[in-house]
């Protein structure tokens, strides 16, 4: 019966490890590329993809609900927002290459880009061109899980979260 005892011991050890790890859960997850640490009290590079009332470009001024949302998030991190305007594809590429930190532009939860980059949980609902309900998300760099966690925490605190 000793193998089963030792296995039970292993299970116990792993369980207690999990508990210990859960204790320091503030520090986990960690960003592989350190996005959250770079952005905090620094600059939040926001990619804007023009889309209806979410992101509107008027000359040199940027308006829309998601522009405001991104500004508020930057403020919550003590960061200065910096805007980069582009099409979705070019912005996703920049996300992958770690040239920007966030993409907004009325992106739905069914976006195919989520295969390439990270996306948040849906933070609100909207009606699309065909009159169908869709859920909206924001795009983040792939695998920057601390940054994503921080953004989703911010959304949880400030948005309706369907």
């Amino acid at each position, binding site marked *: 019966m000793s193998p*089963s005892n030792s296995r039970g011991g292993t299970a116990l050890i792993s369980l207690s490890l999990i508990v210990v790890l859960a204790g320091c859960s503030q520090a986990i997850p*960690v960003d592989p590329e350190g996005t959250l640490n770079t952005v905090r009290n620094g600059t939040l590079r926001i990619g804007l993809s023009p889309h209806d009332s979410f992101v509107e470009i008027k000359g040199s001024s940027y308006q829309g609900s998601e522009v405001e949302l991104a500004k508020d998030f930057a403020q919550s991190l003590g960061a200065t927002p910096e805007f980069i305007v582009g099409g979705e594809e070019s912005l996703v590429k920049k996300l992958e290459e770690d040239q920007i930190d966030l993409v907004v532009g009325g992106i739905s939860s069914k976006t195919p880009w989520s295969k390439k980059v990270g996306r948040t949980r849906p933070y609100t609902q909207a009606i699309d061109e065909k009159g169908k309900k869709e859920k909206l998300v924001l795009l983040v760099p792939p695998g920057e*899980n601390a940054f*994503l966690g921080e953004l989703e*925490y911010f959304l949880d605190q400030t948005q309706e979260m369907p």
Partner: protein
Amino acid sequence: MIPEAGTHLPEEQQQMMRRATRLEWISIGYAACTITAVALVVGNSQAMRTAWIDDMLSVLPQVAFLLSGIYVRRSRRPTHPYGYHRTMSAGHLVAGVALLSVGAVLVYESVSALIKAEHPTIGTMNIAGHTIWQGWLMIAVMAVFAVPAVILGRLKIKAAKPLHNKLLYADASMAKADWQTNVASIVGVGGIGFGLWWLDSVAALVISAGIIQDGWKNTRSATVDLLDRRATSYDGKDPHPLIPRLEGQLKSFGWIKDCGIRARELGQVMHLEAFIVPISVDLSMAQIHEVKAALEDTDWKAYDVVVTPVLELPDFFSQPREVVK
């Protein structure tokens, strides 16, 4: 006379068979719970996805066992003179090939994720107003579901041994080793937590390598049985201990000069041909019948016995008896 198929199992084995069937149904129900629970948290981790598919694949041998359980009970008939025992081997083979091919796909996926340096994204979940990293939930699910599979596996091994059922034995050994998959996926998700994105793909690679190994073992063992290899024990001991035992019994007949047993497996039972070289050439029907009855009485696995008197043993018996593995 020769018992009808399905009734050939002694009472103890029939009970064991019912027990094994019950255990397999429980395993399938348990797998359904695991698959659902993991589906709720699976996310973007390659290790979690691989472990999830592994959970789904674990049902294959169980379904194969239950399906063939229906067929092996069928009686022999002119078109199927050996009965339907081999359905177990056929099911075994199908399960093995499925494991092999899916395992190969999963190895490809985890290697390509490693090469492309894909950083797995795992976000948070909102549980009762708290923003909780989904990785914690993955780890919790994997830890909780690790233990019962091992217990089920141990119970099934206990049933597989007296039943001489290789499909059940293979399924049980896989279940017994299933906790390693869970530990590997916990390591993978933990790696993501610490910012070690590559640990996830490495863990996935370890899990899929395990699947391939299972697939290879199952495919090999089933194929070898279907090729009518000399019968081996449930854990691959060669030759099956019953063969020397039966030969010893033949030798105890004073009038048998030389003998050899050719045994192949029909699922749980064996098809046996006893070649006997008598000391004198005139042999009576009664003597042959006595040999046949003695062999059939020795063990329930000696199910289909044919006694062939010969002038000298076929040459394959004179090859070296012990096969070097």
